[in-house]
């Protein structure tokens, strides 16, 4: 399981949404991007699961996260290290 790395998280979210990495920052919210809809969010969840060991199953709150900051805070709360 990976440690929490903000840069890696931003890159992973960008790759999941298939958008230019420059469009993703800690302040990005889902309403900023058309690609961050329900389907895009599932891709983000898949990335988080692969990186942090099925974390969205252990922490259902990820399903309703609507911002990068919220995702990061959930990771900090639930990932050791």
């Amino acid at each position, binding site marked *: 399981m990976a440690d929490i790395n903000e840069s890696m998280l931003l890159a992973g979210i960008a790759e999941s949404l*298939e958008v230019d990495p420059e469009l993703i920052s800690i302040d990005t919210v889902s309403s900023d991007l058309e*690609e961050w*809809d*329900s*389907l895009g*969010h*599932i891709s983000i969840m898949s990335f988080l699961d692969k990186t942090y060991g099925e974390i969205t199953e252990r922490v259902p709150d990820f399903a*309703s996260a609507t911002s990068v900051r919220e995702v990061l805070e959930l990771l900090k709360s639930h990932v050791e290290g």
Partner: protein
Amino acid sequence: MTHEIGENQINVAAISPDFEKAVAKTGIPNVYKTDRDSYQLSQVALQKLVERFPEITSAPLALLHISQSNQEFLPSYACRLQSDVGLSEETLSFDVGQGCSGFAQGLYLASRLLLDYENVVIVCCDTYRQKLDPLDRSTSTVFSDAATATLVRSDGNLQVASSVHLTDGSGAKYLFHSRDDARNNGNLYMAGGDVLVFTKRVVFRQAEAALGRAGLSLHHVDNVYVHQASKLVLDELERRFGDGVNFPRNIEEFGNTVSSSIPLLIRDRLDEVNESNSVICGFGVGLSSSCLVLTNK
């Protein structure tokens, strides 16, 4: 087992420039839409079944119509179908308002009805595409219209060895369609992430529980047939069930046909189903999930 698919094939990538990337995620290059209403689609599928098995019209049977796409309030579509396809008046006819878990639940009900009927017919039909915002990437890239009709016989090889059913109505808000235009502009709404969390939390464990009730384990299972929701969901579930089982898919052929997805999956695999141990998992709107274990008698 017979079927009728929506007659209009729609290339997903052509719906909107934003949809091309969705195809790789969903595994669905084309969806199917019907210009007919759900009753007409149901009737065609059932008529095909009656033409293949005309003997079922002369005996009492139970007829289940499973759908969440009825466009009439009453009477039930099952009652109308009894007359329109020429079934015996000694037919128990009723509708079941269920979606993606509908066939699994219908098969469970059929297993119980077979105590009193030699034949049970399960008609599944959903025409979700008329409920959608065509530009909603989360739903428009996924759902197809289809109907299936399945004949279940008391003298068949198989039995429902066990079943486990689960309902989480708190998840109703994650997948709904309302007459109230204030709710998602009257269009079908699906929060894919929340439905995925439910699926991951429930389905595999439910299958294990059903196997346990049947005195079996995954080692005894030959085939796993799950609701064809999307590639992302199938990848997740296939990973859970592991390499030791046959895990067929046809998501790329029809898309997500809701209650018809499992019968469409097994229609060309009936020999396989009849000769081995299988698990059937239907899950989705409700939220609900039903798993059955099928074994030879």
